[in-house]
């Protein structure tokens, strides 16, 4: 038995080295908000690790990597359940749904809100539950009267501090990661203040695509003020 363990231990270690050196890694965060005229709406959050599924699959065979604990499938599912349970209890939030695709490593959470400001606290906590240290100091507001949708965002200094603490191999994970936000409205958009974002053909949607690195180091500003046509 001891020999078996030793052998397996060595094989695992060998596999780990191979995996870390070999497979590329990147991920995608997509945030979609569909706004109704009365200020209610729906949110869809997606975390897509499919492009690095080879690496994730290999890593999940291991207990820990570089001192970071690798969660098991059960653990991930449990944490997702907790996040959903938290959402269901949150004020103004309803119709919470989640999907977990362990074949492609894609997780989604969707829910409806009474007022977009309900998301402000929730978003952060969901990301926290998913163990993603992301976008802080962020808030949404929408006024049905003026037709102004506002996304306020201030880069968090802690993000860069935390990032700098990571080991170089782990830092690489963030280098090719991307963040996409899509806001959809019932009325056409008249003014869109963020030069990084673009307006769809129907003028009813605004999309912003940015690298996660820009968000971490504060170089990318995703704040936006969208004024809808009267």
């Amino acid at each position, binding site marked *: 038995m*001891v*020999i*078996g363990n*030793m*052998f397996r231990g060595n094989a695992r270690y060998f*596999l780990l080295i*191979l995996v870390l*050196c*070999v*497979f*590329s890694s990147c991920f*995608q965060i*997509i945030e*979609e908000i569909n706004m109704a005229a009365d200020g209610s709406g729906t949110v869809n959050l*997606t975390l*897509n690790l*499919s*492009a690095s*599924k*080879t690496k994730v*699959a*290999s890593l999940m*065979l291991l207990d820990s990597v570089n001192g970071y604990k690798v969660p098991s499938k059960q653990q991930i599912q449990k944490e997702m359940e907790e996040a959903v349970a938290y959402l269901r209890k949150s004020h103004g939030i309803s119709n919470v749904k989640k999907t977990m695709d362990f074949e*492609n490593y*894609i997780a989604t959470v969707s829910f409806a809100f009474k007022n977009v400001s309900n998301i402000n606290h929730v978003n952060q906590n969901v990301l926290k539950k998913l163990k993603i240290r992301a976008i802080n100091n962020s808030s949404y507001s929408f006024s049905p009267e003026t037709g102004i949708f506002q996304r306020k965002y201030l880069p968090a200094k802690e993000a860069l501090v935390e990032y700098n603490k990571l080991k170089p191999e782990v830092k690489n994970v963030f280098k090719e990661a991307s963040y*996409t936000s*899509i806001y*959809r409205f019932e009325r056409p958009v008249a003014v869109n203040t963020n030069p990084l974002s673009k307006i*769809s*053909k*129907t003028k*009813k*949607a*605004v*999309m912003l695509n940015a690298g996660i690195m820009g968000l971490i180091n504060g170089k990318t500003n995703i704040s936006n003020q969208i004024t809808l046509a009267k």
Partner: protein
Amino acid sequence: MNYYFKSAIAGSFLLGTLAVNAQDLSRKIPADALAVATIKGGNLTQLMSVTELNQSFFGKKLMEELAKDQQADFRGIADFGFNLSSDFYYYNQSNDSVSYNCFLLPVKDAAKIDLLFSKRGKKFTLKDQVRSYFNIDSTEMVHWNGEMLFSVIPTEKTAYFNRPEVRERFGLSKIDEVSLYPATADSTVVMDAATATAAVEEQEEIVTPEPVKKKHSIPAKNRSKKSKLKGKKTAAKNYKKKPIRKKVVAEQEETEEMGAAIDMVAVDSAYTENDGVEDNSFFYDIKLKKGVLAKWTAKMSDDFFAGKSQGSILSNADFTKSVDHNAEVTIWISGVEKLSNAYLPLDYFKGVNFMGGYGTANAKLFLEDQLIKMSSAMTFNDDMGSVLRKVHQRKLNKKFLKYVNEDQMIGYMAYAMDTKAYLQEYPKLISKIYGSVYADEIGMATDLFSLLLDEEAIGKVIKGDGIFIFNGLSQKEVSYKSYDYNEDNFETTEVMKTKKETLPDFLMMISTEDTRLIDKLIAYGVKKELVKNNNSYYEISIPKSPMALYFTIKDGVIFLSTNGQEMQQIVNNTFIAKLNAKHKKALLGNNYAAYFSPKKLAGKIPAEELGKLAKVEKTNKTLNAMGDIYIRSFPMKGNTFSAEVSMDLPAGHKNALKYLFSISEDLQK
């Protein structure tokens, strides 16, 4: 000055024309040096003339830098005044209380060194043909004459200065008092300082056997009031600006007077006393310690120039044996155990001897016409030596060579160790390290280890030798899910995309004798569908991975490969082996052997992995500019274990030094 200048010129001229070895300063290195580093200026200037060096990018950059921050016009490296064709030394000398980092450089023209200092506004004194420069708190000293330049940077041993009896002797505050109580009354401080002076002398007798000269301990009252006042003023100024570290203990001209430092400490603390603020014992301690260090260092360098050191390192046979006139750089360590004892805070390890059994060591750098080579050797005591000899008695399995083709490979790594001997000797090693402290516990643990492990049985499963052959990189396509957004309303749709993953191609071989356990593991794997049986060899499926791994066991060798075709050839006995004599010798004759050909890798790294085109080009250029690299260890010679790393020079370079300059210049671009 004029007379001195002339004689220095004449002296250096004379020295310069004499044979290179006439100025060998190694005789000045004390016999108790813990480590010595030698740079052979003669060898280096033969590989690259001083003129060439000046014209190199490095020389030009150095001159530019110097021109920037000072007015002196240096036309070349020779203008620094050193004898570039002689040997340069660094050595470390330590005792229980202080560690001296010493630099010993051959001087060709002392006047030029004078200029080097004076032009930078650094004052020095002259006494008996020896110039002396002290930094602001006298903890760094530089002395030079027409023959050599000697620079010392002392470091205190914290453990020593933390000992209660030592603290008491030097008048340092008690450890638990530091930062708890403000400094004591004025009179006590002065008295303490006086005791400290006495204590310093007592200590010096431990450092060097010679009795301390009377003049070193001039009583405070004999010293000029002016210097006292000056010290007080500077100290006051500094105290306000920066309370920690940068303390002016003594003015430069005063440091010649030994003991001045101690006096300043008294003056300084008197000042802070009057100020009546915060706790001063911490800064007081720092100053006092610096004063003590400065005094020891001054004494040490005085003795050095007076030739009072206790014998020369040349009397140490191991050192003289390590001297290799062909090596450009040599580092010699008198004893790894000694050195680690001198530096590790042993109090914390409570007698656990991690470096026990490690003896003298050396490392050498050779810059030759065809190759760069770095060799290192370590001598162990008999116990460790016998363990290592037993562990290293295995040789690499000859059968491995039937499956190596040098045209295909980019590199390899091979090792041969005796698993059985290792498992048997390992407990003994552990008990050597911890034995003195945890004898009972270690005894039980090692017995249990032996009881649980059947060393012989394990040694049969994995005998201890193996080889990893790196054949290159290949790309495999993998698909993944992503999202597309339509232009109308940015509605998302899930799409399948493909990308290329770069994978290594390798073959690994490990010797085995008893395959029963592995057979069972395979059977288990097949049952659990982790392993696929391809008749003559097996395939391991890694979930969601584009990489396939194949393995088989044949003739007592476990084969693991990324290439199914290669595995088929191995099984069918159709593998075509090709290996030159140099590789064969390296693999079969040594316990560790590795080879890497950067040139063969050049152009094989997929561009996607590197990103920008410029980066691809730079990587390939660097890889192409490198020669083949070999690493190997040699069979144990007595108790000495030695190893070597070498790189063949690519064609078109006159020698290794010029090559290194050209490659580092390229990398700067």
